């Protein structure tokens, strides 16, 4: 579409809906810039998971759920 980042990512509308789903106040809105930043943040979140995985799975060719479980606590702390 607009080519802001490399390749695929979360669509702004999807992110907006995801956030609005959990807002307590109906008046809460998200600015356009903040939305774009959230797209980046979510991309990092997804990529971070696989990045940590890769560090642990040098030999493995497939990333499995077990390995994911091991790194989960640390990842969540980072966020």
């Amino acid at each position: 579409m607009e080519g802001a980042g490399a390749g695929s990512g979360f669509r702004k509308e999807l992110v907006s809906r995801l956030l609005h789903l959990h807002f307590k106040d109906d008046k809460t809105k998200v600015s356009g810039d903040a939305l774009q930043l959230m797209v980046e943040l979510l991309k990092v979140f997804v990529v971070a998971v696989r990045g940590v995985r890769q560090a642990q799975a040098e030999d493995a060719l497939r990333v499995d759920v077990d390995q994911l479980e091991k790194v989960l606590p640390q990842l969540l702390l980072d966020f």
Partner: protein
Amino acid sequence: MEEEAETEEQQRFSYQQRLKAAVHYTVGCLCEEVALDKEMQFSKQTIAAISELTFRQCENFAKDLEMFARHAKRTTINTEDVKLLARRSNSLLKYITDKSEEIAQINLERKAQKKKKSEDGSKNSRQPAEAGVVESEN
């Protein structure tokens, strides 16, 4: 009455499911990109797990963001709030701060382009507008 509440619950639930599916799709795309780049493969379970995680994390993000904005007595969440979200890890914070500046820069350039376009375009239409203003003053 109870039936109404139930349908509302169901609607909310299926709406959530649709959003989850959309997240799952995007996560899948991202993982595939990464997999191509690193010559690795992600099992379907992993993609599902990451996608579920992302969905849940959004709830935390949303609530935090709302609170940050409210704390600053605003109803609109801005980039400062998002940066606060990324505070826990230094490298993450730096990455997000850099991205935020990048986005601001892109937006500035876009605005400059738009302004230029509208200035070129409205030179023709400006005169009638001024005439209109003069009339309304009378």
